Structure formats: C-alpha cells, structure tokens
C-alpha cells in the first residue's frame, strides 16, 4: 500500500506513455499518430515535473515567507521542451499535408499500397 501511494505518479506516466506508444504503432492515420506522439511527449513532461515536486514545497518564485521550494530545474527543461514540441508538431503536420497532396490519402496502408504498385 505504501508502495502504491509513493509510486503512483510513475505508473500514470507509464500508462500514458504506453497509450501514446500504442497509438503510434497501431493506428494507421498519420494525424492520429501525431496525436499519439503528443501524448507520449506529455507523459515525459509529467515524469520530469513530478520528479521535481517536493512535499510541502511551493512554486519556485522567491518569497520571504516560504522556505521549501520545488525543484526549478525540471521546470526549465520542460518549459523549453514544450515549445520545441509544438514546433516539431507543426513540422509533422506540414509533412502530413504534403503527403496528402502527393498521395491523396493519409492512411499508412494506402500509402504503402501506392508505393508498391508503382
């Protein structure tokens, strides 16, 4: 029971990560694959942020009345990671649009069919 209480955040992370992973490998639609990648990404964010939390800690903005702060380092890393994440997502979506133009579909199986038939 104590193990359950003290590690639940990691389990949530693992579960989310696996859902994202499942979408990426099992779904044929390219847009949905990108959504899956996003979920995977968010699970990593949550892992970092929850590692930075300290019980009884407060947000890392200095204030005289507060003594315990949560760890600011993961916050910095994740903050930049999110913005880079949106940039890569945009790039992926742009690729999807180009693929749609070239093949007329965004289903993986159909794209492969066309590649083989050529």
């Amino acid at each position, binding site marked *: 029971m104590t193990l359950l209480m003290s590690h639940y955040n990691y389990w949530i992370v693992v579960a989310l990560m696996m859902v994202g992973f499942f979408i990426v490998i099992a779904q044929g*639609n390219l847009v949905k694959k990108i959504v899956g990648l996003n979920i995977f990404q968010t699970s990593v964010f949550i892992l970092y942020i929850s590692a930075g939390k*300290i*019980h009884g800690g407060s*947000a890392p903005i200095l204030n005289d009345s507060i003594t315990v702060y949560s760890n600011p380092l993961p916050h910095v890393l994740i*903050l930049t990671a999110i913005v880079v994440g*949106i940039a890569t997502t945009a790039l992926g979506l742009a690729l999807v649009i180009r693929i749609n133009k070239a093949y007329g579909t965004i289903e993986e199986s159909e794209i492969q069919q066309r590649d083989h038939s050529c």
Partner: protein
Amino acid sequence: MLFATAIGIVLSRDLIAVVMLTGIYGFLSASFFVLMDAVDVAFTEAAVGAGISPLLMLLTLAMVGRKEQANRSRNFFALMLVTITGALLIIGTFGMPEFGSANAPAHTHVAPRYIEQSGAEIGIPNIVTSVLASYRGFDTFGEVAVIFTAGIGVLSLLMLKPAPSQVPLSNGARHHTVLRIVSKILIPPILLFALYVQFHGDYGPGGGFQAGVIFAAGIILYTMFFGVDVAQQVVSSAVLRVLAAFGVLLYGSVGLVSMLNGGEFLNYSVLAENPLTGQHIGILVIELGVGITVAAVMVMIFYCFAGQQSKQVEAEE
C-alpha cells in the same frame, strides 16, 4: 482523468473529436502542472497544449478530411508489445525514489544551489527564469534556434505563394457580427497581456516563450475573423521572417556583447557596472529575443497552414 482522456483518444474514430479531446487533455495536464508547483510550465502548456496545437491539427484536418479508416490488423501485436514494454517500465519504477521526497537524487546536486544562490547572484525572484535565461543560457539559445529551424522547415514545406488578389473579407466572418465586435474588443487586451507576461517574467510566472505564444494567439484570433489576406496587410509574412531571424540574432548578439565586454559568451554580469544590473539587462533582452522569435514563428506557421486551406477552398469552389 488524464488516462481516461487518452483512452478516449484511442477509441474515437472521428478525428475532430480526437482533436477536441487533445485540447481537453492539454487543459488537464496543465492543471496537473499547477498542482505540481510548476507554474511556468503550466503557463506554457496551457498556451501550447490547449491552444495552438489543437488549432494546427484542426487546420490540417480541414485539408485532409476527418474520417479515419478502420485498421485493426496489427492491433493484437501492438497491444502485446505495449503491455510488455509497460510491464518492464513498471518494474523499473520500483527503483525510483518516492514521490515528493526531498532526498531524491534530483534534488541534491545542482538544484539547491540554484534555489539558495540565484536570488543573490541574479537578483530576480523567479528562479525558473533565472535558470532558463542565465545559468542555462546556452541551452535556451539552442532551443530558440530549434524553433527558428522548425519555422523555416514549415515554410519550405508549405511555401505561401503570393495569393491572387481577393476581395477583402472574402475569407473572413462577415456574417458573425457579434463575434467580430467582441474579438475587436478583446484583441488589444490580449496583446497587452502578452507584453505584461513578457516583462513580468522576472517576478512571476511568464517569460519570452509564453509571451510569444500569447501574442501569436492574439494575431491568430484576428486572422480567424478577418481572413489571412487582411491579416497579412497588418503583419506581412516578410516582416515575420525578418522578425524571426531578428529574435535569434538579438539573443546571439547579447552573448557577443558580453564577450566584447570581457566576459564569457552570454555572461551578463559584465553588461553593466553592477553585476546584478547587468544580469537584469541581459535577461530582459534575451527574453525579448525569445519572445519575438516564438511569436513570429508561430504566426508564420499559422499563416502557412491557413493559406493552404484558403487556397484549397478556392480550388474546390
């Protein structure tokens, strides 16, 4: 609840529903970050995860269609793989430190120094900003360069051809009087709020990344109501390209100036007589650079997507 939303995304076939659930998912994870004391991160995630990324997905869907095909052939294999990987990872978590304990290895090395010393060394209350902009300035410079590169990538993939001259507002929402007036009232406060976030980043949650996204959101709102063409008369894409490059250059030149003044690259202490003042100036300027780049790249990406869409609609009509 995060997990439930994720499952919903897996099960849903209609891609618009997927996108909307992604938006809800973004809100949820952002609230989670607030609970975890990561206010700066929550700020960014709210703007990006719940705002911009569903928007871009919607624009993509508008072009590629919203129905997903049934494709269940590899499901069993995939499920097996996922379960095995998940089980292995869960076994791995038993070695991890307890959630929230103050003695975890992550808290014992460099972080205490940041917490104890940054107030004296940098002189601004928000530790996240001081670490981001000063201690890890190199890293952030790299991130800005990555964003800039991604912007260029999208631009080269979806190059916006000079659109044929259209009647203004042809693509806008002329019949939505209420929406247009409300958004007209709202856009100036949004831009003002972005500036507040930009310059208040030293004292509260906020900074260049968030401010850039909010600023972009304001312009995107304008574009949605008045059409890409009208918005481009206000902020043309050539200006945006120059601005995006200018932000990166501003960041880099701060580093060079500090080198000229006898310090290391991106060491702001030498920018002024008093090291603390120098740090203040340095952080303010590089945050401005970050903000300009992020805003310009986001709007640029949005123009690319929206421009594609309006072209397609024209072609269909």
